[in-house]
């Protein structure tokens, strides 16, 4: 660490913390999850970047949507995303969250993830290689530095837009029907 970096850290320790300690919630969305175990084990070590998988959304601040998102999975993703504490970042992984990918005309998968939860970055590929994942993590660091990774703020401010889209495809979610309240 050189003097310029130490000055940056002292000016805003919050950003330093958020950048170098991204904890991924280990939610295995679709077929893309097969690329995550090589990334977090010894060969392409993700712990050097501060990225470790955690088991519960309450402890995580990064959500990787890997692979296609069917409607059932979208319900679970929305519930998991709602449980994560701010600030939280979402990265769409693979070509299926971007525009539907290989399942662009399927009756059961969503085509554009940004309509339902706010996404901060996309990684293209089917599946992206581990090196692409690391490049994406460093891009996310730059975005956090410049305060452009504000998907969570967008979610809070434009919640009616997201809620309407969620209601269109998932009208039976418990948060809309009020079921399961204790």
């Amino acid at each position, binding site marked *: 660490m050189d003097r310029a970096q130490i000055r940056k850290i002292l000016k805003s320790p919050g950003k330093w913390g958020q950048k170098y300690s991204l904890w991924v919630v280990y939610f295995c969305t679709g077929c893309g999850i097969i690329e995550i175990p090589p990334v977090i084990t010894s060969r392409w070590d993700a712990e050097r970047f501060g990225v470790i998988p955690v088991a519960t959304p309450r402890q995580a601040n990064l959500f990787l949507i890997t692979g296609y998102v*069917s*409607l*059932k999975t979208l*319900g679970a993703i929305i519930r998991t995303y709602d449980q994560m504490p701010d600030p939280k970042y979402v990265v769409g992984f693979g070509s299926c969250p971007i525009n*539907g990918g290989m399942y662009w*005309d*399927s*009756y*059961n998968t*969503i*085509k*554009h993830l940004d*309509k339902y939860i706010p996404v901060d970055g996309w990684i293209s590929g089917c599946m992206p290689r581990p090196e692409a994942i690391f490049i994406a993590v460093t891009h996310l660091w730059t975005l956090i530095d410049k305060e452009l990774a504000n998907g969570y703020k967008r979610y809070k401010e434009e919640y009616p837009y997201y809620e309407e889209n969620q209601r*269109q*495809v*998932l*009208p*039976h979610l418990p948060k809309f029907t009020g079921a399961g309240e204790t």
Partner: protein
Amino acid sequence: MIEVEEQQKNKIAANFENGEVTLPRKGRLVVTISKESLCSLLLFLKMDGFEHLSLISCVDWLGEGELELVYHLWSYQKKIHAMVKTRIDRESPHFLSIIPLFRHAQTYEREIYEMFGVRFEGNRRLIPFLLDNWQGAPPMRKDFDLRKYVKEKFDVEERAE
């Protein structure tokens, strides 16, 4: 040995006159039979060594107005994969359930009910499990307009063709 398949074919032809048996290649046996005699043929084959039901699948013949149910059976001893086919009507299709013969057919019949709309009488668990809160027509049928459904439901914009 082609003899095992030949023997099996002769046995089936001897007992069921209205079934047409063909041997496309070694290890495969295809029987086409009417829907009234299907269950007795399945029972006969099960007693004859075909103890394993691998799958039940469905084919939509839109031109002929029929749905074809295919039962895939496997015999461990003879190493023959038998496909037993029958046709049923396409408007309000229904059929008998073969749960008394093979208990695990319940899941395959549930899937065919959800994807093609075929009711199986005797299956008490015809509840959906693949699709979530599905409000449309059975999606695997050939007259299900996929692009139109996707455009309406997910609100996708027109792409430059």
